[in-house]
């Protein structure tokens, strides 16, 4: 038990979980009713759950899904993909384009999703080739699609912002009749289970980390570093297309300008808040997902405090800086030295070694 606690204390999840806990406590003290659930009846006559927790979980869905993919790309390629929002818009547009040309039923929705997915994976392969094949830094390589992505999305639908009227789409975007939990939350759960299955049933995690930490060594152990990098970008493509389709389904329309706007920034943040190094290597997808929910919880908390939606970013920035400053090795070693000088004997030799560099 003590051993397990020790391991937890050193894990990268401490700071994000602590931040989440602080947020929860803050809200609990500020407004005890913040965490209450209500059952309300929505327009379609379904009784559904509502409340702040539900809205946090619901609105963080796209972010959580994308941050999973972003974690893989960060770990493997030691850089970030800043084109995810734009690629999501492309995927969403493809989704809408396919739906518009058919009468909407479940198989067609599936077909539309598969098409969207393929296109997003193709975009990922493009980014991945630039990064792995040409050795361009991920941020620069993905700047191309960031610039051109949303216009391409616009062009896919012939320069219009079409709406798709279908109750089936509402099932994806909001509620399935009879189930009181918003569908996006269910999608995240299913997707998270799938991802953890993939991580368990394949060597994705091991290979990705090996390539991110020491590419030369990974190669000498027979890992195809080039392939792994492209694969990570393609996996991100899948995540992005799911998020894009959820986003479209929520609205019932595609707005190429605003769909998942600035999600790349939030996703990179989620990865960093989750304790993952943006310079790659070891990763924790759980951390990134927690990071995504921290960002959303913070946003909803600020809304609840009557902070205007446009000003939320400023407060978010302060919290982000606080978290990364606490996580900075320089600051941590400073605190350790401080503790050393105040309580000279309380530091274990082992820890000293860990921070010696």
């Amino acid at each position, binding site marked *: 038990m003590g051993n397990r606690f020790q*391991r937890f204390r050193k894990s990268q999840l401490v700071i994000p979980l602590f931040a989440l806990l602080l947020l929860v406590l803050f809200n609990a003290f500020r407004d005890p009713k913040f965490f209450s659930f209500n059952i309300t009846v929505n327009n379609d006559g379904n009784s559904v759950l509502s409340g702040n927790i539900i809205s946090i979980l619901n609105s963080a869905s796209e972010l959580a899904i994308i941050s999973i993919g972003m974690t893989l790309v960060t770990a493997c390629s030691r850089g970030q993909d800043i084109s995810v929002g734009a690629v999501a818009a492309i995927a969403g547009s493809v989704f809408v384009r396919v739906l518009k040309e058919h009468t909407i039923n479940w198989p067609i929705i599936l077909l539309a999703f598969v098409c969207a997915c393929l296109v997003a994976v193709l975009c990922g392969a493009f980014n991945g080739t630039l990064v792995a094949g040409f050795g361009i830094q991920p941020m620069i390589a993905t700047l191309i699609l960031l610039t051109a992505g949303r216009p391409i999305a616009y062009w896919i639908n012939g320069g219009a912002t079409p709406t798709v009227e279908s109750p089936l789409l509402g099932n994806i975007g909001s509620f399935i009749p009879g189930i009181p939990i918003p569908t996006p939350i269910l999608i995240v759960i299913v997707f998270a289970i799938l991802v953890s299955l993939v991580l*368990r*049933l*394949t*060597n*994705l995690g*091991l*290979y990705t*980390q*090996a390539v991110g*930490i*020491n590419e*030369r*060594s*990974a*190669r*000498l*152990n*027979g*890992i*195809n570093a080039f392939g792994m990098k492209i694969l990570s970008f393609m996996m991100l493509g899948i995540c992005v297309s799911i998020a894009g389709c959820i986003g479209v389904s929520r609205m019932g329309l595609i707005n190429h300008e605003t769909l998942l706007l600035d999600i790349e920034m939030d996703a990179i943040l989620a990865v960093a808040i989750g304790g993952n190094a943006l310079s790659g*290597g*070891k990763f924790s997808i759980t951390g990134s997902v927690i990071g995504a929910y921290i960002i959303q919880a913070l946003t909803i908390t600020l809304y609840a405090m009557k902070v205007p939606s446009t000003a939320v970013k400023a407060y978010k920035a302060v919290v982000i800086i606080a978290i990364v400053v606490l996580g900075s090795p320089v600051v941590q070693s400073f605190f350790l030295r401080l503790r050393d000088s105040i309580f000279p004997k309380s530091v274990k030799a082992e820890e000293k*070694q*860990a921070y010696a560099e």
Partner: protein
Amino acid sequence: MPNDIVLSMRNINKSFPGVRALHNVDFTLKSGEIHALMGENGAGKSTLIKVLTGVHPKDSGQITIAGCAKEVNIKSPQEAQNLGISTVYQEITLCPNLTVAENMYIGRGNNTLVHWAKMREKTSELLDRLNIPARATQQLATCSLAVQQMVAIARAVDMDCKVLILDEPTSSLDEREVEKLFSLMRELKSRGVGIIFITHFLEQVYEVCDRITVLRNGELIGAYDVKDLPRVQLISKMMGKELDDITDLKNSRVSHARTGTVPVYEATGLSSAAGTRAFDFKIDQGEVNGFTGLLGSGRSESVRAIFGADKITGGKILVNGKPVKIAKPRDAMKRGIGYLPEDRKQDGIVDDLSVRENIILALQVMRGFFRPFSRSEAEKFADEYIKLLGIKTASSDTPIKSLSGGNQQKAILARWLLTKPQYLILDEPTRGIDVGTKVEIQKLVLKLAEEGVSVTFISSEIEEMLRTCSRLIVMRDRKIVGELTQDDMTQAKIMHTIAGEAAQNG
């Protein structure tokens, strides 16, 4: 003449946790001499240099420098520079994106503005004076490595250094470039600069140096004039065996090689992009053979070519008599070949991953992307080998970077043993680890051979190779210069072959 001495170090001691790196070492450098500092790996050369340049503080001892009345206490590289001690490292520490002139003057002086014309003029003058074939306005990256090295030296010279340390400056240069570097060194020598030259190439020592100081195991063996120390004697001093002792030291080991059957691995005309000459090589089942030669002789490049670690540029390969194509490490692994790389940090360990993950990595890759080991399987493998090899680690979950060098090496060894290879290449498996572990690894190699595994073993310590190998391939200057078996395998013979002289005592 006492005035001649620019640098003297007396009774230098330095210990690291668990290791005594330097024990009462003396070193004297006269002005206007090129002084070779020789010794095999772990002899203490680099520690001595680091003490001198202020990277490591010394434990005890005195350092005096001409011009300073008292003994000096050097605390940082910057301070060493101010005292007139400049160092040029093997890897170039200049900025490749700046011009030659800028690299000479950046980080010096207090001017707010850059006087390009003045800087260029002064640099051109210096380049001319030192016969360096570069232009002041040229971008450094467009110069050849030799010229870059010379620019680094020129910078040191311009900072009025009295002592110039050249730490393996020639290892990445070709013959022509080395020659240029030497003429520069002679030029500086005639100006009265004392040069400490560290190299692994014996020819270079005899070509350019005046005196030689030999270190072994952190102790001073002696300082000699070059003309008084023939090559064979130098090698024997570096390796710690007098010729008389070693002539009759026969290896007592039995060969397990099953020569009658098809060789496990056979290559003809193999060459790689790393720059080895095309070579032929074969190994029988259960045979232990070795590549020997000094560092930089191409022994590592050769085994890397066997494993497909560098781009293969030519050659035919037969494994168990069947022609195969080995283009990348994965291909070699599939044929049952394992490779423990020379550079443990860069090529071996994946430092943030746990010991367990590091151990199972190779087997996992061979098993395939879609068939990962379960946590308990992986733990079983890891625990088995941690116990078998006696790897000292808190748990199999500990990141491998927090282990000591020897234990890291054992973990990498475990990684390849786990793949049950039919042919295992070990490049310097005993480097930088304690004596006990060294013996364990040698025993393990012999045990593997008994079980029918073929092993190629490389070590800087010839004794180790004599104890384990039944056949030695001797390399010099990136090509194979000899092959020794059974009765020929004596230290004397090996040294003579390495030195390129006719055997006298063999």
